[in-house]
């Protein structure tokens, strides 16, 4: 058996043959054109950039390798091949693995010195030598890579690495046109340009021009532009090396390539062709994986023929999905991203440099293909789903699948990490016990019984199970109200009801409970219907809102004064330190750029506030379902890279929305440049400065189910930014479910981000005026809850340890010392076998 060509495909064939032919029935001769034995061409660039050794493993001694002696002719009748040195080799089976040659378009000057192709190690050695001389003789010289495909971009990176100012010229309108669509190509271009290369897409080349030394010096483009080019690399595609096949009369394709059947057999049954030179079913494959598949098929065929058995091995086409890290940028395409009959779902984040596009069938049910640039983390799952029915909406699939409804979460997903309860455990509990309420699921599975943050997810799983079982899913808040939170909000807004008593009498039943009371209190507060501690509302608030502080595990509270934007004067820092010292409090810096003071007994709270309020502090609402902080980086005032005053904007936003009651807490951040030091994309609303203003992101979340915020609008002025955030927050407050953060609210919003834009920007619902007015009311009516409480003897009554012994501290509260600060000791708990621990 004779193999012509010792590239990766020929090498793989010989390896496969040797591995499966222990008896040595095949005698193998490999005839190679290059002086080197086979090497890993796929990793060619690393030869230049990392000095990598690309050599593939040597064949064993049973294989005869003749290198540096190109085959010049094949005699099909005599079954011989002849080489340039005059060697004649007989064969029983011949395999052509001649690969392909770089395509050099017929432009004037293509043969000048300094013009290269990018295919072999010899090419690279010559290129390196030329560039080294060029940068010495003409520092700052430019170079042009012709072709913006996969290999062209690799070549460009290599040329740039050799110290040459690099231009990429691509005749197609965008980069990597064979793999990417226009949007993906455009995003890739941004990445390539960010690396310091120049891209000229949609630009044919006219000619290469020589300098005084006779070598190439410039490239003239169509339209008259000229690029400095002391070196030119052609990487404008490849052509199959089919000249030997043509010469001996084998059938070749109209546009090149040796025609083979699915067994990789040519028009002569004794001759096979594999790899880039083969034309299978009208297609030439340039990726290494299908080339290897062909090599395997032929190895099987040859061995079967040698043992006179039938062989069913066939090359059945290849999945052309590719994922690669090109110059540090994730690029992937899968399925068929160019299907004309599909629907597109596209996501673009120009700041993060991410482009994603899915092509789905026209009923949006089946994934056909897609393109990912900048973030290909979803590639494995997406590629696996090509041709299958989608588990969720295309947007859900695009954003990772797990964002889909609870019913789609994989069974092994841990829902409650406190108690290690999986989605499957919750589902089987629901089925086995016929559970219909979240409280039952919690009792049965223990999910959500500790920190409670997974309860919304538990509810979604329950809803999905009930829906699947045909049970009508109730949107009732609890047994006292048939309505959802959003419906109750509308009822309160429209009727102007100001008390829980009237609301439950007219629209509910019973006396209420720990679920509906805080919800109604929050709604009343959001609508500005009175102070949260006034009158009947005082009875509705859970302990944190009731005591304006955060309950900790031993029954003490923590106190967080507002530090807008994280900016604080030395004087105020000293006050916080003095207060903490004087009351013996534990201090810790929070994630929201403020300082938390722990260990305050209930009767100490007013005394602590007095000191803080006198020094100019106010409540930071760390206890409320309300705006917490607007975190910021230091911004253009100090930072070398900042482009806007992020601290100033963060302070303005925090002061505007402080005290705003919402379905859940709200966190925000402002970053002064695209480096995003304030982590704004992890917030309910995040702002990132641009040269032209501000980009607004919404619906981000950290916590147990992290979600990157979605880019909502770009390059906003201060006024536009504040108007959009006003409406976004008020629309969220009006329509979200109980304890629903903006992230899951946005996911559950019919129409998603686009719909939100229509409401906020285009006022599709005609409520923008109402939302603006509601926010104006909030801003106008804000007052500090701590100062208000200190001024009200009636409210102060609740800040006592014991109603019959107001001066006696709770004897169960005790501390020990750790790292020079207090830590709680549970006295009562020590005597009690605490349940569930």
């Amino acid at each position, binding site marked *: 058996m004779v193999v012509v060509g010792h590239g990766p495909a020929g090498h793989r064939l010989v390896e496969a043959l040797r591995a499966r032919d222990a008896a040595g029935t095949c005698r193998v001769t490999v005839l190679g054109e290059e002086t080197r034995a086979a090497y890993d061409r796929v990793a060619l660039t690393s030869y230049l950039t990392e000095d990598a050794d690309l050599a593939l493993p040597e064949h064993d001694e049973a294989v005869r390798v003749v290198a540096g002696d190109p085959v010049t002719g094949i005699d099909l009748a005599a079954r011989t091949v002849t080489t340039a040195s005059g060697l004649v080799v007989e064969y029983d089976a011949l395999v052509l693995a001649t690969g392909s040659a770089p395509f050099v378009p017929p432009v004037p000057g293509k043969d000048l010195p300094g013009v290269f192709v990018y295919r072999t190690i010899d090419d690279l050695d010559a290129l390196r030598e030329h560039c080294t001389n060029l940068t010495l003789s003409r520092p700052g010289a430019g170079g042009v890579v012709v072709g913006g495909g996969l290999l062209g971009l690799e070549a460009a990176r290599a040329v740039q690495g050799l110290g040459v100012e690099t231009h990429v010229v691509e005749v197609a309108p965008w980069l990597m046109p064979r793999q990417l669509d226009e949007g993906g190509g455009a995003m890739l271009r941004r990445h390539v340009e960010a690396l310091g290369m120049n891209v000229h897409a949609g630009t044919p080349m006219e000619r290469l021009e020589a300098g005084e030394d006779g070598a190439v010096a410039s490239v003239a483009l169509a339209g008259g532009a000229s690029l400095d080019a002391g070196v030119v690399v052609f990487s404008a595609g490849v052509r199959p090396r089919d000249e030997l096949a043509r010469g001996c009369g084998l059938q070749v394709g109209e546009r090149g390539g040796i025609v083979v059947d699915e067994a990789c057999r040519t028009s002569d049954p004794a001759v096979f062709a594999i790899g880039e030179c083969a034309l299978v079913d009208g297609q030439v494959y340039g990726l290494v994986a299908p080339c290897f598949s062909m090599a395997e098929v032929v190895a099987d065929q040859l061995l079967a023929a040698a043992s006179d058995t039938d062989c069913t091995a066939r090359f059945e086409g290849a999945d052309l999905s590719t994922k690669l890290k090109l110059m540090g940028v994730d690029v992937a395409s899968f399925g068929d991203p160019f299907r004309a009959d599909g629907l597109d779902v596209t996501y673009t984040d120009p700041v993060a440099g991410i482009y994603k596009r899915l092509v789905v069938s026209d009923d949006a049910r089946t994934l056909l293909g897609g393109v990912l640039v900048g973030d290909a983390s979803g590639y494995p799952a997406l590629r696996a789903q090509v041709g299958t029915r989608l588990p969720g909406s295309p947007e859900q699939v695009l954003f990772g699948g797990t964002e889909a409804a609870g019913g789609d979460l994989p069974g092994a997903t841990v829902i409650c990490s406190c108690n290690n309860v999986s989605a499957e455990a919750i589902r089987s509990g629901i089925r086995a016990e016929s559970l219909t309420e979240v409280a039952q699921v919690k009792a049965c599975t223990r999910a959500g019984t500790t920190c409670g943050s997974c309860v919304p997810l538990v509810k979604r799983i329950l809803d999905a199970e009930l829906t699947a079982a045909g049970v009508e899913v109730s949107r009732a808040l609890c*047994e006292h109200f048939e309505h959802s939170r959003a419906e109750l909000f509308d009822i309160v807004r429209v009727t102007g009801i100001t008390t829980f008593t009237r609301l439950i009498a007219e629209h509910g039943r019973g006396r209420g409970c*720990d679920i509906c009371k805080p919800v109604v209190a929050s709604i009343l507060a959001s609508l500005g219907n009175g102070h949260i501690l006034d009158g009947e509302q005082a009875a509705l608030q859970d302990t944190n809102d009731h005591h304006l502080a955060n309950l900790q595990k031993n029954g003490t509270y923590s106190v967080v004064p507002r530090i807008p934007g994280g900016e604080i004067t030395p004087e105020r820092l000293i006050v916080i330190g003095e207060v903490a010292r004087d009351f013996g409090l534990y201090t810790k810096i929070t994630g929201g750029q403020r300082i938390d003071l722990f260990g305050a007994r209930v009767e100490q709270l007013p005394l602590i506030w007095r000191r803080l309020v006198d020094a100019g502090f106010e409540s930071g609402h760390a206890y409320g379902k309300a705006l917490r902080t607007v975190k910021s980086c230091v911004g253009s005032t100090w930072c070398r890279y900042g482009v806007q005053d992020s601290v100033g904007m963060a302070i303005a936003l925090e002061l505007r929305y402080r005290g705003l009651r919402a379905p859940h807490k709200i966190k925000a951040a402002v970053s002064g440049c695209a480096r995003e030091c304030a982590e704004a994309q992890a917030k309910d609303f995040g702002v990132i400065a641009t040269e032209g203003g501000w980009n607004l992101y919404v619906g981000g979340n950290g916590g147990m189910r992290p979600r990157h915020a979605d880019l909502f609008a770009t390059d906003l002025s201060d006024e536009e930014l504040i108007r959009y955030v006003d409406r976004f927050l008020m629309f969220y407050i009006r329509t979200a479910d109980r304890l629903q953060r903006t992230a899951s609210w946005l996911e559950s919003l019919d129409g998603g981000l686009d719909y939100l834009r229509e409401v906020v920007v285009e006022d599709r619902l005609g409520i923008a005026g109402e939302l603006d007015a509601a926010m104006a009311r909030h801003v106008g009516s804000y007052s500090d809850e701590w100062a208000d409480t200190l001024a009200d003897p009636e409210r102060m009554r609740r800040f006592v340890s014991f109603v019959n012994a107001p001066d006696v501290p709770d004897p169960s509260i005790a501390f020990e010392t750790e790292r020079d600060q207090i830590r709680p000791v549970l006295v009562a708990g*020590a005597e009690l076998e605490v349940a569930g621990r």
Partner: protein
Amino acid sequence: MTVLRDVETLPGVSGWHRVCRLTDLLPERGAAALVAGVQVALFRTFEGGLHAVGNLDPFSGAQVMSRGLLGCRGGVPVVASPMFKHVFDLRTGESLSEPGPGLPVFAVRVQDDMVEVSLEPASQPASSSADTADRAGTVASGER
């Protein structure tokens, strides 16, 4: 293992303890009281009903039940612990949200507009777990 240690041996434990004026209790809210060294959570509902239970949340080990929210579950008056939101029947002390220890329940009455509590249990502390059955005996003095 017991919430109330040596109740019988504390001086002045038996009988009614005057705690506060009725008006000191906010409707639909709780208050903690220190009764002969025992922490009691007092609740006054909208309807005017009074309840006294142990202030100790058995699930967290913190003395916080008086800061829980009142409500009803299927007509049963309940308090939800502010710590992990476990719900207890105010009449029996039974844990309703999940199996586990309940709260001790104390007798409470109003005399001359003053709220009075008896540490002698109004009912046995309910518990849905069998291993705490003997605790009821320890807590309940049985003398009225």
